[in-house]
């Protein structure tokens, strides 16, 4: 296999010529040729340190040199014409000795090790041929640590490759983990027991070549890798869209592993992505239909639904979709209810921000994570990406090393010489600037990180924009030198530190070759996004400054997918309520029959609004996978599939549509949202605009929308969609906008489907051996790229690998065998599919910002900056900020007691000290101009660099508490503190009990395996 690379040269490996790139080291070069050479300390994205000495090869001077000398391939550069041998006895014997030496202390406890069967150490041991133990001495032993609920620790298995600390500390910037001891007593862990603090701790499980660090949830309900049924999936917990391989057995999800995508997650995931899958098995899952009576005692049928919904035939509903439901489900819902009755559950504020976001998406292509890692200047504004898009923060960290890599390169050290580059770099980092309302975990590597309320961020960006529009960078530099801080627009509006910040950012931008600007929608502030838009436009001028790549991270896995469906007629929640109340007394034909809510918990709605919604909607149909306040109020509840149980697409922050594939069929009546909507559409019909389709509607019921002149047909479908492919075909037939969304609707469909199980899966006869040794039939599914079976095409044939495995490579590191070259694209890779985001939403004057701010000064609720008033910002949390992941019991056990960060000025005024327990009363005027208040007991933390007008904490504040917020701090009484802590302890204990209950139920279920003959809709049971 050859690498088409301009830097490739010919080298001779065991006298055979190979084309190898000079950009990476010899080990990467050898592995790129799909040759087997064992390694431990090297990692494709962490480079070489030469610690384990496992990848030794013999290097020869020339073709006459018969002796050669041993070199470590990972620390050897590739040079033209170099001759090496892997097979040479000296090298292969040495490699065997290395394993033998490592094994002197390894406990050989493979039967009870969660890594068994996918252990890199096992693979490498077999690869070297080491098979007999000569060491006769005792083994060293260690005491293990409690590292929290996510990662297990078994230090006796350690072979001291140092990868864990290189990942945790060097790569991910963790501070609470390290190396202790020396000689053959090197210990990897924390100073004391305690939960790992890094958002990336789960990667230790994959980074560790053996079973020192294990996935605790997986170990608790364990199965060997070869018995897992897996499918390629996409993370459902944030907008980055990391690619996952989800593994299932006996109907329950067992674990999430990284699925290599060189443009996004590479080799690493965040802990929310890896462990947040717990919600799929959780106690809170909806497993029954509510509000539909069932004819057969055995199962629900489509007839039951038809019967229950029949009186809604061709009636109008309002549909509330969501940013966590698949693109297909949202699109379907929008077209069932019609675009004038469609909302994605955003409130006015969020709609306004979404309108700005949609416009920002027009400005150009959004960089992927790999591109972020090549950046040399990063400005982060108003988003704690370490918590909301954690994997991106990891990429930002890597980008900051570019200055060190450049310095190393200037003295001839290549970037893959990891320890050398780190020695040369020292504390040198590429510039990172950050404006945030809460402190973030990137502050430690930022050149400047300022804390401020969101309004001031906009001011800073406006000042930066003005600097940029002053002209060429030479002119401005001169300007800054001569009239430093003399500019009125700087002086009048900005504090000294803000002025320094703006000028430092400007100067950084002037020097940058590949700058990036990262922001998000967490603060739900349209003005901030507008300032960013204006700033971005100022780069379009010819001022010699490179335009930064712009990244906006919304909160959910399909936020951008939802954004793509919003148009000028889309409704906010407030508008939904208004529309419902307006229609209550109107003529019957136009009457809104009710509301269909699709995987939407309406978290931002106040209790008041939820009650209003319930009261106004005659029929409330809720589709969701987990209980929430809406499922309790709904008339009809339809239990939907979680990410591992169905097919669909999520659209990531870039607009990249990625398919997640069904890992296992759900237990009926749970089915994918789009199947439920398909059942509903069978009754309600689907709205199609007349110009939009050439297809003759099957049954027409034309209606003229009173307000506009576009004809909307409601058509009924002639048959149900049996598969996602059929659904796509149906969409494509009726909606010209659909193929633009998902361009290649059947790119993967072929008659050689890939096996979801490994070819070693324990036979089907043994799967239910406790019940019967009869071989059960495998589940069938139409138009499926994958089979619920161990039979099928090899994973080599697909770009979407359900799991990574290659002969001799049982661990996830098998991925190297499928890359064009190490760290390159997969050999079988399909083009990423980006969907276009229209800016239609912004056409609706309701969501335009320009006039809004000026004219609405008397209307309270959003957007206005109220000078000198107090802002409270809730800290984002990797565990709790995303609704689905937060349902995971392991995460609930990581809950922290209340903390409030205040400035030292406030602390002095109120006389409280850092870490003191306080009673904080927040009060404000709500939407109805009433005075409302909330009392919080918590620990106060004092920050010196916090503006007095900003406080932040880890607890939510009631939605109404936004306008003219005031805060009163007094020392908490001992009893108040005790009460808070006991409540907190109760919550943690409840989470623990729930974790244990889930585990017990899952283990019970393993004895009664649900087998579905066909994975499809309700009638396939």
């Amino acid at each position: 296999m050859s690498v088409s690379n301009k830097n490739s040269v010919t080298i001779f490996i065991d006298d055979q010529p190979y084309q190898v790139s000079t950009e990476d080291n010899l080990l990467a070069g050898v592995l790129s040729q799909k040759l087997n050479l064992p390694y431990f300390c090297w990692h494709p994205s962490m480079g070489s340190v030469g610690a384990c000495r496992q990848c030794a090869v013999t290097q020869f001077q020339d073709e006459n040199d018969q002796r050669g000398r041993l070199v470590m391939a990972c620390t050897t550069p590739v040079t033209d014409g170099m001759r090496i041998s892997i097979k040479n006895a000296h090298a292969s014997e040495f490699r065997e000795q290395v394993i033998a030496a490592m094994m002197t202390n390894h406990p050989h406890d493979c039967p009870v090790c969660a890594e068994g069967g996918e252990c890199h150490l096992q693979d490498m041991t077999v690869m070297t041929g080491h098979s007999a133990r000569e060491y006769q001495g005792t083994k060293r032993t260690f005491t293990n640590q409690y590292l929290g609920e996510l990662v297990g620790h078994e230090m006796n298995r350690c072979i001291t490759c140092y990868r864990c600390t290189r990942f945790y500390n060097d790569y991910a910037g963790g501070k609470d983990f390290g190396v202790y001891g020396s000689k053959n007593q090197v210990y990897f862990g924390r100073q004391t027991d305690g939960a790992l603090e890094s958002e990336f701790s789960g990667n230790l499980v994959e980074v560790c070549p053996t079973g020192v660090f294990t996935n605790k949830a997986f170990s608790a309900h364990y199965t060997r890798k070869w018995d897992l049924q897996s499918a390629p999936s996409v993370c459902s917990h944030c907008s980055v869209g990391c690619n996952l391989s989800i593994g299932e057995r006996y109907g329950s999800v067992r674990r999430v592993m990284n699925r290599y995508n060189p443009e996004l997650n590479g080799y690493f995931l965040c802990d929310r992505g890896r462990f947040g899958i717990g919600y799929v098995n959780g106690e809170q899952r909806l497993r029954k239909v509510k509000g539909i009576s069932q004819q057969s005692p055995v199962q629900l049928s489509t007839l039951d639904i038809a019967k229950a919904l029949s009186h809604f035939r061709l009636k109008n509903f309002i549909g509330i979709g969501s940013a966590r439901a698949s693109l297909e489900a949202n699109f379907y819902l929008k077209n069932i209810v019609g675009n004038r009755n469609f909302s994605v559950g955003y409130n006015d504020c969020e709609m306004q921000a979404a309108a700005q976001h949609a416009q920002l998406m027009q400005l150009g292509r959004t960089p992927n994570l790999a591109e972020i890692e090549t950046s040399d200047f990063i400005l982060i504004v108003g988003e704690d990406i370490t918590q909301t898009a954690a994997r991106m923060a990891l990429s930002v960290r890597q980008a900051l090393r570019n200055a060190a890599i450049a310095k190393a390169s200037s003295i001839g050290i290549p970037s893959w010489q990891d320890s050398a580059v780190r020695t040369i770099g020292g504390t040198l980092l590429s510039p990172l600037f950050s404006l945030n309302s809460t402190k973030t975990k990137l502050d430690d590597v930022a050149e400047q990180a300022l804390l401020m309320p969101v309004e001031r961020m906009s001011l800073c960006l406006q000042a930066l924009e003005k600097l940029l529009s002053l002209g060429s960078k030479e002119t401005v530099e001169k300007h800054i030198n001569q009239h430093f801080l003399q500019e009125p627009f700087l002086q009048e509006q900005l504090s000294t530190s803000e002025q320094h910040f703006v000028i430092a950012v400007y100067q950084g931008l002037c020097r940058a070759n590949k700058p990036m600007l990262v922001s998000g929608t967490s603060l739900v502030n349209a003005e901030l996004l507008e300032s960013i838009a204006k700033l971005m436009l100022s780069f379009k001028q010819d001022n010699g400054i490179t335009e930064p790549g712009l990244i906006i991270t919304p909160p959910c896995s399909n936020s951008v997918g939802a954004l793509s469906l919003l148009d000028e007629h889309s409704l906010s929640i407030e508008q939904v309520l208004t529309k419902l109340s307006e229609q209550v007394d109107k003529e019957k034909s136009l009457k809104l029959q009710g509301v269909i809510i699709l995987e939407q918990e309406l978290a931002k709605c106040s209790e008041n609004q939820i009650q209003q919604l319930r009261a106004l909607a005659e029929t409330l149909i809720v589709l969701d996978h987990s209980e929430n306040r809406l499922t309790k109020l709904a008339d009809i509840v339809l239990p939907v599939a979680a990410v591992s149980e169905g097919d669909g697409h999520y659209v990531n922050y870039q607009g990249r549509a990625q398919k997640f594939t069904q890992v296992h069929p759900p237990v009926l009546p749970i089915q994918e949202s789009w199947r439920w909507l398909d059942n509903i559409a069978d009754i309600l019909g689907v709205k199609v605009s007349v110009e939009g389709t050439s297809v003759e509607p099957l049954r027409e019921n034309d209606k003229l929308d009173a307000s506009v002149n576009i004809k909307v047909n409601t058509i009924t479908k002639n048959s149900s969609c049996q598969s996602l492919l059929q659904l796509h075909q149906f969409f494509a037939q009726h909606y010209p906008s659909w193929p633009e969304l998902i361009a290649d609707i059947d790119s993967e469909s072929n008659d050689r489907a890939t096996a979801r199980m490994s070819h070693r899966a324990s036979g089907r006869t043994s799967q239910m051996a406790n019940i019967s040794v009869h071989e059960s039939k495998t589940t069938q599914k139409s138009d499926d790229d994958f089979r619920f079976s161990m039979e099928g095409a090899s994973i080599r044939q697909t770009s979407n690998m359900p799991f990574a495995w290659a002969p001799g490579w049982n661990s996830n590191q098998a991925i190297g065998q499928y890359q064009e070259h190490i760290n390159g694209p997969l050999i079988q890779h399909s083009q990423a599919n980006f969907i276009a985001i229209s800016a239609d939403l912004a056409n609706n004057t309701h969501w335009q910002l320009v006039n809004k701010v000026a004219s609405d000064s008397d209307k309270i609720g959003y957007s206005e900056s109220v000078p000198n008033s107090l802002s409270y910002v809730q800290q984002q949390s990797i565990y709790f900020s995303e609704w689905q992941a937060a349902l995971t019991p392991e995460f609930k056990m990581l809950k922290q007691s209340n903390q409030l960060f205040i400035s030292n000025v406030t602390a002095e005024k109120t006389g409280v000290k850092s870490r003191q327990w306080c009673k904080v009363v927040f009060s404000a005027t709500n939407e109805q101009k009433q005075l409302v208040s909330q009392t919080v007991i918590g620990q106060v933390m004092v920050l010196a660099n916090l503006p007095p007008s900003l406080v932040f904490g880890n607890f939510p504040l009631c939605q109404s508490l936004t306008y003219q917020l005031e805060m009163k701090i007094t020392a908490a009484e001992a009893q108040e503190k005790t009460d808070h802590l006991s409540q907190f302890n109760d919550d943690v204990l409840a989470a623990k009990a729930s974790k244990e209950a889930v585990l017990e139920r899952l283990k019970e279920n393993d004895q009664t395996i649900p087998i579905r003959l066909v994975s499809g809709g309700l009638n396939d049971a």
Partner: protein
Amino acid sequence: MSDSWQSSNIKPLTEWVNLQQPPTYSEYCQHGGYQGAKHAVLEHTPNEVLEIVKNSGLKGRGGAGFPTGMKWSFVPMFAEDDENAPGNKYLVANADEMEPGTFKDRLLLEGIPHQLVEAMIIAGYTIGANKAYIFLRGEYHLAAKRLQQAIDEAYQENWLGEKIQGSKYSLDLYVHCSAGRYICGEETALINALEGKRANPRAKPPFPQVVGLFGKPTIVNNVETLSNLPHILKNGIEWFQAIAPNSDAGSKIYGACGRVKTPGLWELPMGPTLREVLFDYAGGMQDGLNFRGLLPGGASTDFLVAEHLDTPMDYDSIAKVGSRLGTGGLIVLDDKNCPVAMVLNLMRFFAQESCGWCTPCRDGTPWAVEVLTRIEHGKGSIEDLDTLAKLCDFMWIGKTHCALAPGAVEPLRSALKYFHDDFLQHIEQGCCRYDPESSAKRTQVATAGRAVS
């Protein structure tokens, strides 16, 4: 300590050593102290000093014998007005003398601390370092005290601090007491330790001359190497080379320990034969004991035996007979002590001191300890000798991250060659013929020590 080191003719390094009461500043000056530094700082440019040191033929006395001037020449030089120049380079004296059987630097550190201070001014001036550290073995409490006194005096006399003796050159000198690891003798591990990091040797390149302490160009020199500088500067290249006309330039402090009559240290012109040092200076073996072999330069060098006694103790000659001059401190083995026990003892030291970074050293040295322990206990088998030979190959040069493991292998592999019969005897007779009881006791400690944490 014996005074016999004073019996040689030319001994510039140790002539004024006084272990009871080291020379004060004024005493040191009376003996010609700070003349070399004066020549260097006030009369020469750094480049001229570099040329002098290069041409003198001075080689590193820490063990590797690398030419000092050449090492310095790798340091990137900055123009005097270069804004990067001040504070941008470091000089470190490697005073982490932890090689078993070696105590030569201690003599200099405790007996004549001003000599090292003066030497560091010269070296610092040459490479353009404004900050210098003495990385001192943690156990050398007395040396720490005396060095600090000397440094304080040097500050008072403006030999340290701002604008030394009215020149443009400034130097701050600090004593850093090591927490105590053998690996800190390796210069990059030393630098890591000095930075407060784990004492693992660094990947090279980059070499410390280019990227060293805190990322800046750094020179690490052995105490004895540095101590030659004042004399070279004061007396000139010809004088230095004439000390030992037939060998490497200059004098060297040789030492001997073990069951010799007068163990001690002697500064001699480079290149006395092993026999001279062993018999003329160390007084030969104690009565009733016969010579079996010796390690010529500390614990990490190969054994030499009777047939090698006429080898001159300079870098090349010792290398030719299969060992290394190392530190020049002989460890002498007699015929009443067990060579297997001696090698085991050494191997235990190296296993203990392995930093734990690379596999051959981390897991190979304890494995060798395990095999040697069994052999010493009479529980070895003939296959164990193959295992030991394999381990020697496993930990050899080129296979490890630094020189610690190859150093650990040197006494073992040479013992297997020269004392093969002793190993066989242990295996065949199932006991140690020297002093089974005490050897059993010694090794018991080791066995007990293995069941840790």
